[in-house]
């Protein structure tokens, strides 16, 4: 019996868009709106089928325990981002619709791939589509951002392929179910290379340096996509590889992973403090968040993976929220920290959205970010890492400092010399932000275990 899955819906959607655009050109219809609506409809149908039927289970792809949850929130966030994109300018290039669906499909496939080949292809689907998304959405530095992204991404995927070939040499197979039983030296070297390659995608230090530049150069909605959906895919790929495909339990690997994670958190937080531009602060904070999720993966056990998956969910939602809210301010030329004076008067809803998102990123209750950090701490303390927890407390204080520093300068009531530009699609944008804020408040009810 053939089951309808969200992945099939997305593939169908991608083809449908190409056909529809062809028809549009043949019938000489100038308006591209209809295609935007089709894209949105495809995303929504995919979300519904995901919730109702779950993932597909064919040769190269098999669902793991929480892939339904992960794919569900990936589609949910994609819908939110796409609504924002749509409301922004009314019409945009059809390429963007196509690439957006393609990248989302790639993210969905990463989550369920059960073979190194399918994993690499899925990651490449996200990457190639993302270059296009960065380039085709007009900003003044699009070319720089896209070029940086392309060159770094190529490097990372080459490293992954090289590592995979070593794994193949060691085990004679690329299927996760077979590699999980191997233990052989070149094989382990391959694992190290795969780690390095995947770290590029999920911005783990020292492979993070492309992220702030690319985020800054791309449009706010695209940044939201890169920092949530694309990064979720990277981190889930790591879970897939290091927990399901190559289940080590060696102490050395664990210490190495924890060191990388702590280095990521510390480095990104320190860099965030010295930044001047709001978007770069948010970019570095998003790197630090990936470090927190990586701690859960580093524990290499079920409790750690649980906490990592939930943490990825919390920070993905919060990151989408802050970048989308910041997009509203970006359009009103609020770029530097000192400009944050005008935030509240520009848009109340976006300010509240930004603030709640920051609360969640800083790990303060009652937002869902707190519960994400709680699970991470619980994992660490269960393993007796009291010192690491204390060090993380210190760095969370640091991050609280720069997160709250963003909104400190805000003025609540004085209006002098502020020209309010009308925000296009204001109603839809505010609705999206409000839905995401509510998600952050009630998100704890979605704990998948």
């Amino acid at each position, binding site marked *: 019996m053939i089951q309808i899955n969200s992945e099939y819906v997305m593939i169908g959607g991608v083809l449908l868009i190409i056909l529809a655009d062809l028809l549009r050109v043949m019938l000489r219809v100038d308006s591209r709106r209809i295609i935007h609506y089709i894209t949105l409809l495809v995303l929504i149908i995919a979300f519904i089928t995901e919730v109702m039927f779950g993932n597909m289970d064919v040769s190269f792809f098999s669902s793991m325990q929480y892939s339904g949850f992960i794919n569900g929130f990936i589609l949910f966030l994609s819908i939110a981002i796409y609504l924002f994109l749509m409301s922004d300018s009314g019409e945009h290039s059809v390429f963007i619709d196509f690439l957006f669906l393609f990248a989302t499909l790639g993210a969905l496939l990463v989550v369920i791939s059960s073979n190194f080949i399918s994993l690499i292809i899925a990651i490449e689907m996200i990457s190639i589509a993302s270059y296009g998304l960065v380039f085709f959405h007009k900003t003044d530095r699009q070319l720089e951002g896209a070029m940086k992204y392309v060159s770094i991404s190529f490097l990372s995927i080459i490293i992954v392929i090289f590592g995979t070939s070593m794994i193949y040499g060691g085990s004679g197979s690329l299927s996760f179910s077979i590699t999980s039983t191997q233990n052989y030296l070149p094989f382990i070297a391959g694992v190290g290379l795969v780690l390095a390659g995947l770290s590029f995608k999920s911005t783990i230090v020292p492979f993070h340096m492309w992220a702030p530049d690319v985020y800054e150069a791309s449009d706010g909605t695209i940044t939201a996509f890169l920092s949530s959906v694309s990064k979720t895919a990277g981190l889930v790929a790591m879970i897939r590889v290091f927990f399901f495909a190559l289940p080590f339990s060696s102490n050395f690997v664990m210490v190495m992973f924890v060191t990388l994670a702590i280095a990521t958190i510390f480095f990104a937080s320190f860099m965030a403090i010295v930044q001047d531009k709001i978007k770069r602060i948010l970019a570095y904070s998003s790197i630090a968040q990936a470090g927190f999720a990586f701690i859960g993966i580093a524990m290499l056990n079920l409790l750690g993976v649980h906490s990592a998956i939930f943490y990825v969910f919390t920070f993905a939602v919060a990151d989408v929220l802050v970048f989308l809210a910041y997009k509203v301010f970006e359009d009103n030329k609020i770029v530097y920290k000192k400009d944050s004076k005008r935030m509240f008067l520009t848009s109340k809803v976006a300010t509240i959205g930004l603030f709640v998102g920051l609360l969640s990123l800083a790990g303060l*209750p009652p937002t869902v970010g707190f519960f994400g950090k709680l699970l991470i701490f619980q994992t660490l303390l*269960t393993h007796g890492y009291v010192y690491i927890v204390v060090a993380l407390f210190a760095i969370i204080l640091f991050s*609280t400092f720069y997160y709250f520093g963003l909104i400190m300068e805000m003025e609540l009531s004085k209006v002098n010399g502020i020209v309010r530009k009308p925000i296009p699609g204001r109603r839809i944008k505010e609705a999206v932000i409000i839905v995401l804020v509510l998600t952050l408040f009630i998100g704890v*009810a979605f704990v998948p275990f």
Partner: protein
Amino acid sequence: MINLLSLVIVPILGVIALAVDSAASNRVRPEYIALIVFLVTAALFFSGILSGFSESSITIVSSIDFAFTFHLSGISTPFLLLAIVLPALGFWSAFREINGGKTLFYMFYLLSYTSLIGVFISSNLLSFFVFWEVVLISFFFIIAFWGEEETRRRASMKFLIFTQFGSLTLLGAFILMYIYTGSFNIGVISAAVSDIPTYISEIIFAFVLIAAVIKMPIFPLHSWLPDAHVSAPTAGSVLLAGVLLKMGGYILLLFGSLLLPSVVKSLQVPLIILGVATVIYSTLAASAQVDFKRMIAYSSIFYMGLVFIGISSMYSIGETGSIFLMVSHGFIVGMLFVLAGILKEKTGTRDITKLGGLMTRMPMYAFFLVFAVVATLGVPGLSNFVGELLIFIGAYAVYPLSLISLVGVLIATNYYLSAVKRILFTSLNKTLSKVRDISYGDAIQLSLFSVFIITIGLIPSIITNSFSLSI
């Protein structure tokens, strides 16, 4: 029977009403909504005192044991009294002082109100922590956006960083308790506390101690408090000194001396010495202040030092005295902060050296100021006396040298009385010749404070019978 849940729900409904009202372009003044919330909550509380409270529990996520469980622990009632009454008494100051962004201010004020109540009645540690942090965030905003223009940003950030560090260590303690007992419920934890290995319970107590030392605050980690007080609006100061500091005492009692008595007992003498150091340091620091509000802030560190001595004496008389002193100090310091706020408003300064002879211009104000100062110095018949006496008895029984802190009381008498002399009784400063006396509204607010102080002072058994030293 009154359900404890209703005490938390009513202020949250108030916050929602404020948001709706703001969307409907403020048809009702936000002050009135806040006032209604205070009156309804207080009515619920006092009828609950008479008819008893019923517990309630709402499970949110069972796999991580997160539930909103409301249950009165043995020591909650006096703290609950503070959390319910003081914000309502401070409301009048907010009514007069806050001009810009009223809706947002009352939203944060009601949020801190509901979460202060929530902290004292939660028996699930996660919901406890959620309320604990919401208090912190709403106070950060009250100071940062409605504080004094020059200092508010720095002071609010200092407040946030210090107290957030305390919160995080407290969270660490909670998670450790969960790992070793398998539950976040205080009742379950206290039943299974013997399962926790000794070294883990020492780490837990160290974490709780850091949180309490920052929150109360005790000597080396106190420096956020004077800054926060000086910058905060009066209503914020009343809540800050009256209830927030008591949260520190509450966790030290609950998770320290009641949950882990053996650990506290082994650290008793160093803790008492820390308390004595706080007492001596804060009185000396207070003597050097010329800003009246800063002086009160340091004196409240002094009283929290006494409370700390009483709790770490691990002796029922001392602990009873500590709870008693926290309640009485809450009312007295609230009254003093209201008086300091009025002083700034009427004369334009809180600098004691620039004031003088206000007795002739403001007789009613003079009456309340002298009353509050006399009460804070522990004159028999007023509330502080009972608490101080019990603490000194308890501390003497355990560690006689702790009576050094009596010197602190002496110095406190000196600086308070000389401040009162300077403000009220020297010759009138010419710039102050047009100052007017307080309004009837202020007088009613101050009288309400006085009623509580006198009642508790004359009939101490109201407080001492309302709690038992158990979880």
